[in-house]
């Protein structure tokens, strides 16, 4: 099954809740609304996407949003296993709270903890929401957000490092 076919499949099973679909080679990204994300995940699970490969987040400080992406794929369905589907949801940057998808995909548990400690996204209903890799003092600084500035190399010092 090619990525185009998976795109039409995803558009059919997520009808009415898609805000945007993007297709790159072997990868389909779907953006859904915040209130529909649990229902969308449940429908994708029923369609055969049985595990989460990674959970990640992107910080957009200019647009004041954080986009959380679940990369899902399939082990059991060989046709679906050739394509990765990214289920994305946009959260407000000042209060990023969303429902945890751990109840649907159990493999998202540790990776949601990583998103929690690096970006400060709170997952409601997560069974064990603690920092995973960082110590707690560092996790409160939200170190992978764009406004956490680290010391740069000397050749780059003086270059303005500012976000509007």
């Amino acid at each position, binding site marked *: 099954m090619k990525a185009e076919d998976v795109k039409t499949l995803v558009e059919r099973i997520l009808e009415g809740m898609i805000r945007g679909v993007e297709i790159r080679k072997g990868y389909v990204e779907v953006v859904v609304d915040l209130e529909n994300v649990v229902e969308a995940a449940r429908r994708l699970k029923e369609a055969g996407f049985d595990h989460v490969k990674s959970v990640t987040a992107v910080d957009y400080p200019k647009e004041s949003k954080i986009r959380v992406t679940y990369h899902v794929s399939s082990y059991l369905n060989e046709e679906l296993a050739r394509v990765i589907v990214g289920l994305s949801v946009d959260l407000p940057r000042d209060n990023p709270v969303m429902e945890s998808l751990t109840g649907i995909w159990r493999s998202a548990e540790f990776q949601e903890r990583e998103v929690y400690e690096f970006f400060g996204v709170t997952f409601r209903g997560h069974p064990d929401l603690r920092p995973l890799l960082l110590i*707690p003092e560092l996790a409160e600084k939200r170190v992978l957000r764009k406004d956490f500035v680290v010391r740069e*190399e000397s050749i780059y010092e003086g270059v303005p490092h500012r976000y509007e």
Partner: protein
Amino acid sequence: MSNVDRVYVGNLNVAARRAREILLGKLKLGDVVDWATTFSLWPVHLMTSCCGAEFAATWSPRFDAEQYGALPWVGPRQTNLIIIEGTVTRKMACALRITYEQMPYPKFVIAMGACALDGGLFYNSYNIVRPWEVVPVDVFIPGCPPPPEAVARAIVELRRKIREKKVASKWLIEGWRPDREPVKPKEDVCSWWRP
């Protein structure tokens, strides 16, 4: 003991002559301790980063660091040498300090790679510590990663240091090694750990 720095690799004739000298009482007991320590450096395998690949190649048949009397061992309570193989993150610093404190003395530390010297690639990371702030380091090996020859050289350098300065025997007599101050971590490296 005039010819103190003559023997660094195993030589059966020299070892037999030394054993005869020891048995005839020409050597003091402290010299025996230093001599024995140099030939039984057992590094604990604390692999923190990619330098562990070079560490493994050092004990492979091609480079054969076992000829210096060193063999990696798994349990820290049976070892006397840590080779810090690369980056030490904040959580790993706790494990490093606990491992160091579990080892019986005399014990030694070799810091391997640019990350263990001053951060290396991760010099501005928020999540690393310098290992010399956590444990006392004897030999630094520069390189990213250091070749297996450099690791073998560091072991030879450490053996020379032990025998020339008589570190091991004085450590046993005085309770702490005479040539340096003890290193205590400035902050509690295990503060995140609540059992």
